[in-house]
């Protein structure tokens, strides 16, 4: 079965995100004054892969991210979300 797995890489809570801060200070706050508490910017890696279950798809991509340093566990947090795709394409 084909799964579409999203690896979302963000700086950990408590680790600064200057890009998000700059967007908030110079763009977001002037458009939505007083409304926005925080803006964070990260990366998303989308992997479409063959796996026997959602759990396996998530496990394999998490291992991939850890082994090949797709993120730096000291700085980043990783969210992994998999969902089944019908025909393997988007």
């Amino acid at each position, binding site marked *: 079965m084909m799964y579409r797995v999203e690896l979302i890489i963000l*700086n*950990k*809570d*408590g*680790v*600064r*995100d*200057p890009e998000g*801060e*700059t967007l908030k*200070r*110079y763009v977001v706050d002037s458009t939505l004054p007083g409304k926005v508490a925080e803006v964070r910017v990260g990366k998303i890696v989308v992997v479409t892969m063959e796996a026997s279950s959602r759990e396996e798809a998530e496990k394999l991509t998490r291992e991939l991210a850890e082994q090949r*340093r797709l993120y*730096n566990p*000291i*700085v980043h947090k990783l969210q992994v979300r998999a969902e089944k795709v019908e025909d393997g394409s988007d």
Partner: protein
Amino acid sequence: MILTLSSGEMEVVRRVLGREPREAEWKLVDALWSEHCSYKSSKVFLRSLPSTGPNVIMSVEDWQDAGAVDVGNGLALVLKVESHNHPSAIDPFNGAATGVGGILRDIISKGAKPIALLDMIRVGKLDEKGKWLLRNIIAGIGFYGNSVGVPVVGGELSFDETYNDNPLVDVACAGIVSKDSIVPSVVKEPGLRLVLAGFTGLDGLGGASFASRKLSGMDEIGAVQIADPFAGKIIIDVTLEVAKEVEAIKDLGGGGLAVAVTEMANGLGAVVNLEKVPLRFKYLSPEDIIISETQERMLFAVKPERVESVCSKFREYNYPCEDIGEITADPTIRFQYNGQVVAELPSDLLLSPPLNVWPAERASRRREPGREVPLGEALRAILTHPDLVSKEWAYSQFDYEVGTSTVVKPGQADSAVVELPNGKYLALKGDANQDLCAEDAYECGKAIVAEAYRNLATVGARGIALVDHLQFGDPRKPNVYQDFIDAVRGISEASKFFSIPVVGGKVSFHNEDKNGNPIKPTPLVVMAGLIEGKLARNRIDEGNLVLIGETRNELAGTLFSRIFGGGGEVAKTKLIEDLIASNLVIKGINEGKVIWNKDISKGGLAGALLPILTKGFSVKISSSHVVGTSSVLGKMFSENGGRFLVLTSDPQWFMYQAGRMGIQASAIGKATRDGGKLVLDDETFPMDSVVENYYTFLEGSL
């Protein structure tokens, strides 16, 4: 609470105070007395370095900030070198980037405009982890330097397994300021306001105190500092804009506000109102505000009537700036939160930790006999070694042209050259030699100063100032400490010999691999020089090859011995040879006799030939004309100092002048345009694969 203070040091604190310090006070003492801030294990020896001279405008007092030398027309050059080794091992991108930010803020602390950066990088083997480290270190340096518009004009990149777990990321910066506008880091009068620009956050808080609060369950967060070059650029621009309105400037580095305030007060006192400190993270405790090491902050001492003017310039950029306290006549450093005392300690206690002189013992180094290696194999191994390949992969990621003053660019010569605002040409070079230092730290200390001096001479410059950075393992290990002492002695002796003042320096201990073995001792010097006569353009062309200096069969502590082991003798540095040979090269440049030249260092004569071979030229060498040893391996790969390789159309001139000066010079061969071969006597070595490797190795590996 975990402190690095020893029980003896804690006793001293209790005795002087006559009471048990509060928690915040322990942290304050811990920060000020840390090796990083206090130089307690190195200071005794650093005092032997010559820090004065006729051109010195501001000598470095207690090794805290950058010094300055006169470069004519009312201008001063500010020079500084620093490393970010440990942060770069954890997070190479941000670690290297914040290292650049830190050194830039040291330069602007003097009111000087940063005009050039150098980066000296040392990593281990290029396995998966090594590649990850190097890619990110280079990208991080580029990210910061490029974003703030300071050109990285030169540097070094060396690969040695001693750095597998502990890469060395050294960054140096040169700045220019008019002589009468240099801003001090310390104050002389009470009543000045303390003004802090920039947010204070969680960054750089001790991992230990964090884990105990289990904020996120991850104890390393405190050790990570995220680089924000955009904020750094605002800090640079505005600090230089307000420099004339303030009495003192200090960067917030290691030890944060605790160290900056105490060192700025310099024996006077200070009151800091912590509730006034602008926070990025509002739950910071007063104790943490004191020691947070958040980047992109500056502390100013300002006359009360100018505070508003200074802060308004920051606010124009939406950048926080607050009056957080004042300098007092009472010599006490007092941090308070809404009037409540958090820490209150005598200035004198904070600034005067008990100094350490650790037991030292020279390691016995068993000399193995020299190895015999077939010449072809040795040539191939040396000439394809990553230390000698083209570094374009790295420097092309740096904006080395910004500032429109980079005259000699990365990869063009042994030194970088930048044009100063007064029209003079400034040459810069950083040098270290872990191979030689691992064999004999004293000879190596001398050798790296001599090498930097020679490197400046290759573009026609004479050294005027240097800064050093001393990188070793744990000073409590007697062999490590002895190497440190020996290296300082060597650097001191050589800089006195060349009459070059040491205007700044740093010490980085505890560089070890994961098993606790020290790295090879890696002291590093960065030398600045001025070109008083002609600039050598050093464009390779056909010509005669002249070798200046004597070649001795000293293969221990060389690239050859790193690759093949063994080694025989260690190179003894004869400074007089370096001085005279440099004089000869500069004279040759000024009289138009030099087409191209290079000092002989890593890889020996063979290494010096490589740039010619890679530009499409063949080289023919007659080994009998390489004088000083009968060993062919010694002739080709010895790295002893005092030598230059010169391309010239007038070899007789060099031999005649060398004879008058009392050194060797001999015509050893020719460079011709029919590229691709190294001919040594009657043996021909094709160089096609060496040349290809030279241009493709880093690009291909990374």
